[in-house]
């Protein structure tokens, strides 16, 4: 007899405020929730699973200080932002650390991404695949969405030629600036490129340049299952990158997403095996009373959304999506 699902497994760190918003909604639905951080592996997280004989799905226990659950009874996984194993094992010598990290990734991580349930929001493998900007832009373009002309290169000559053909151009990093050893964080905001600054130091690594879109606003479209939330975002100074200013000054207004775009977003998520995504668009005015032109910028498959005006409804949508089809 198949075990009946009864648990939502929330994989994230204890500091994750976004997860709290969804867990509150799940608690209201009276489903069992277990919040587990793979980074706690050790006495803070124990597990044992078996496969074989007539058992074709991993079955066994996952134990945290506050829960002891049967993994085969997990009905859905809400995958958020677990603590990196490298942090958990930072105290170990290099070889021991690398061994423990890799074994935990493949053993615990491998089990958690291969549970009996197929309801992952989102599956970590899908998140990884969809995290690459070259993949995002390619899929968006193939689906017919407008994207900015884009160059990825480490060749300064190619960058100069692109700037000459498409200027003004902007630069954006793929992943941002790493944290420095002393813990300081810098930002690499999306920024306009002064062509004369392009030099041979581009050769060091990959760089992404795009034609600047003459936008009048941004749009954030958050898709959770079949539910679409959208905000038009404007900044008092018309900043190129709205993250660079005072978030309190951002103006959020409701915006209608064109049906054609919505269809593309669902197709985009389907392509990557995602059920949730945070899409960013640049909006260009095409004239008074004319609809804005929507240009796809990117999609964060594990984005933050708690700062948006609809966050309470979004949390409900996550709970609905997680419980759909198996919980009353």
């Amino acid at each position, binding site marked *: 007899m198949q075990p009946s699902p009864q648990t939502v497994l929330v994989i994230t760190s204890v500091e994750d405020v976004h997860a709290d918003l969804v867990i509150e909604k799940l*608690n209201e639905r009276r489903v069992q929730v277990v919040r587990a951080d793979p980074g706690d592996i050790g006495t803070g997280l124990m597990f044992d699973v078996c496969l074989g004989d007539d058992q074709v799905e991993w079955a066994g226990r996952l134990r945290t200080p506050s829960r002891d659950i049967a993994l085969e009874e997990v009905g859905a996984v809400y995958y958020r932002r*677990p603590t*990196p194993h490298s942090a958990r094992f930072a105290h170990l010598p290099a070889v021991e650390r690398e061994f423990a990290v890799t074994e935990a990734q493949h053993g615990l991580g491998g089990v958690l991404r291969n549970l009996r349930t197929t309801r992952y929001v989102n599956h970590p493998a899908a998140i990884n695949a969809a995290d690459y900007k070259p993949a995002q832009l390619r899929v968006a373009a193939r689906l017919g969405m407008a994207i900015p002309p884009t160059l990825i290169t480490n060749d300064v000559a190619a960058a100069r030629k692109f700037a000459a053909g498409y200027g003004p151009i902007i630069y954006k990093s793929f992943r941002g*600036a790493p*944290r420095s050893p002393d813990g300081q964080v810098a930002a690499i905001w*999306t*920024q306009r490129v002064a062509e004369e600054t392009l030099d041979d130091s581009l050769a060091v690594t990959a760089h992404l340049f795009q034609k600047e879109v003459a936008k009048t606003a941004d749009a954030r479209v958050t898709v959770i299952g079949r539910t679409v939330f959208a905000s038009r975002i404007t900044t008092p100074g018309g900043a190129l990158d709205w993250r660079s200013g005072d978030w309190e000054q951002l103006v959020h207004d409701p915006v209608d997403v064109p049906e054609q775009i919505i269809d593309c977003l669902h197709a985009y998520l389907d392509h990557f095996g995602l059920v949730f995504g945070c899409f960013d668009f640049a909006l260009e005015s095409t004239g008074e009373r004319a609809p804005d032109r929507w240009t796809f910028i990117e999609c964060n498959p*594990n984005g933050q959304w708690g700062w948006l005006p609809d966050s309470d409804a979004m949390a409900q949508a996550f709970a609905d999506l997680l419980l759909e089809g198996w919980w009353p």
Partner: protein
Amino acid sequence: MTTATAWGLAQATEPLPKDGPLYATAVLDPATQLARFYDAAGAIVDMGDKKKAVTVTKSKGGGGDGSGKSNPVADDSNSDG
């Protein structure tokens, strides 16, 4: 071997000003599985209004399986022109 700083990294801002810590400790409530945040004096910190503060540049990177491949970076989507 090229030893120059990558052009892109040279476009980074100065280190962002450090906000005061939002909380001193985070503890999981066993019954609800919700996090409870406390300041250094042990008083509860209401994170309800601090969602923005944990959204940009301060939180862990997404994706992976706790692998630590992702740096803690400006982690929400870029917006550009």
